[in-house]
């Protein structure tokens, strides 16, 4: 906006203001009514949805489901869209940071004096696109759920090795399912495809030893299972064993 446009705006605005109504009581009345609606909404949500307190935090646990508050779903979902490991920082920090900088600087690069949404096609389209994208990502994030079960046939090469083996395999499957791995990894038909790599045939790529290494000392954002290994080595062994059997069947 150049000087003339600024003066034009201020002039027009002062006229609009002169034609307007006083803040008190007219705007205050509207605000107060809106405040009542907000209060009512909060009270109703509190009464209907309650304030559920889950089981106590336990670093050794295997039954957690790391789910953020719903309005972070779109950030969480973004991680799944951008999958290659070298691009993960771009998804986790890069895109949100760029969005934030764009948001901060908005008045400094959008300098036209036009204010009507229909006469600012680029800004309006970008705004609607952003809202739709966030809405879609939030929806996808909410849909993904927090699976705690893995539906998989026990492969024949396991059942061929007898009961003890099957037992350990099943126990390991349970540990993996309840550890929330599926929130970020896909195992056959189960879980989310990303942000973590697919684990369906992880054992073809990594020996069991390396899988155990990764569990204890993962690359972020995956949480470490070190405490599980220390406190419940049995469960940890089962987990590694199950993951170590995820191979493509010939």
């Amino acid at each position, binding site marked *: 906006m150049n000087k003339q446009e600024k003066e034009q705006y201020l002039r027009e605005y002062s006229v609009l203001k002169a034609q307007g109504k006083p803040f008190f009581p007219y705007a205050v009345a509207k605000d107060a009514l809106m405040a009542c609606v907000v209060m009512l909404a909060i009270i109703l949500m509190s009464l209907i949805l309650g304030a559920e307190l889950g089981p106590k935090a336990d670093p050794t646990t295997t039954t957690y489901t790391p789910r953020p508050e719903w309005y972070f779903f779109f950030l969480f979902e973004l991680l799944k869209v951008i999958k290659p490991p070298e691009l993960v920082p771009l998804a986790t920090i890069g895109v949100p940071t760029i969005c934030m900088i764009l948001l901060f600087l908005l*008045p400094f690069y959008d300098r036209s004096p036009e204010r009507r949404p229909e006469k600012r096609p680029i800004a309006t389209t970008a*705004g609607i696109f952003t809202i739709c994208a966030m809405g879609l990502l939030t929806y996808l994030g909410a849909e993904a759920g927090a699976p705690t079960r893995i539906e998989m046939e026990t492969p024949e090469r396991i059942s061929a090795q007898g009961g003890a083996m099957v037992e350990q395999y099943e126990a390991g499957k349970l540990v993996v399912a309840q550890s929330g791995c599926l929130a970020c990894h896909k195992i056959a038909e189960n879980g989310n495809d990303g942000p973590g790599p697919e684990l369906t045939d992880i054992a073809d790529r990594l020996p069991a030893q390396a899988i155990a290494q990764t569990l204890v000392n993962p690359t972020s954002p995956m949480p470490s299972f070190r405490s599980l290994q220390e406190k419940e080595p049995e469960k940890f062994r089962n987990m590694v064993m199950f993951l170590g059997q995820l191979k493509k069947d010939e």
Partner: protein
Amino acid sequence: MPKLKLPLPPIPDKVVPLPKRPGQPKQGPVDLAKEAGISAVDWVDERTSLSGAARWMMFRKVPKGTNWFYTLGSATMFAFLSQAVTGVFLAMYYRPDAASGAYESMRYVNDEVFLGEFVHGMHKWGSSVMVILIFLHMARTFFFGAYKYPRELNWVIGVVLLILTMTMSFTGYLLPFDQRSYWATIVGVNINGTGPLVGPFLSDFLRGGPEFGATTLSRFYAIHMLLVPGLLGALIGFHLYLVAKLGTTAPPWVSAEKYTKKDEEQA
């Protein structure tokens, strides 16, 4: 006699009290009661001179055409106030002690304290309401072009308020210290850690060390209780000051074409 002349809000002509007839200097109890409030305000104003500020804040004009979309900002602030009040009540019971206190104190609030779960629920769901409202308020500002001259600075402060609100929600998530909050926070902190350059330092700062330990919860608690609310309060004050100073925008499609000479003089 009270000296203060409070500006009267516009009221219909019929309701305006008639001026006193001359020759009635005697004051009855009703007159005294009427003036008691003014005297009290007078007493404060003599010492603070705040009436000018109050008048400036309350009796400014809002441009014609403002509609319900313009209540979203105040609604967001109201949600923040609700969070502050319910948060204070929760803080009366909460113990930021990861080893034993935190989870048990929230259990106590939920199960034993009168209306405890209700207030906890209001705080929990109030955060969602506040986030929704702040996004709606931002959308209104964006689509109405209300961030343009002369309100650029107010937009920037608004974005900071948005980030601080998200920070509040992220740091508050850990405090009940149940499974969900614990693991979600670990993932969140790890995600922060993947950032270039500052990432690892930010994660270490949030955890209070390389591992998720005893100080982590106190740190989140301090950020959630002291640092961010203080910043939020101060910046909301500044945001409001600028709104009052610059005025709320009129909707972009409202024009001042039909103004008269009188309007211009008033302006």
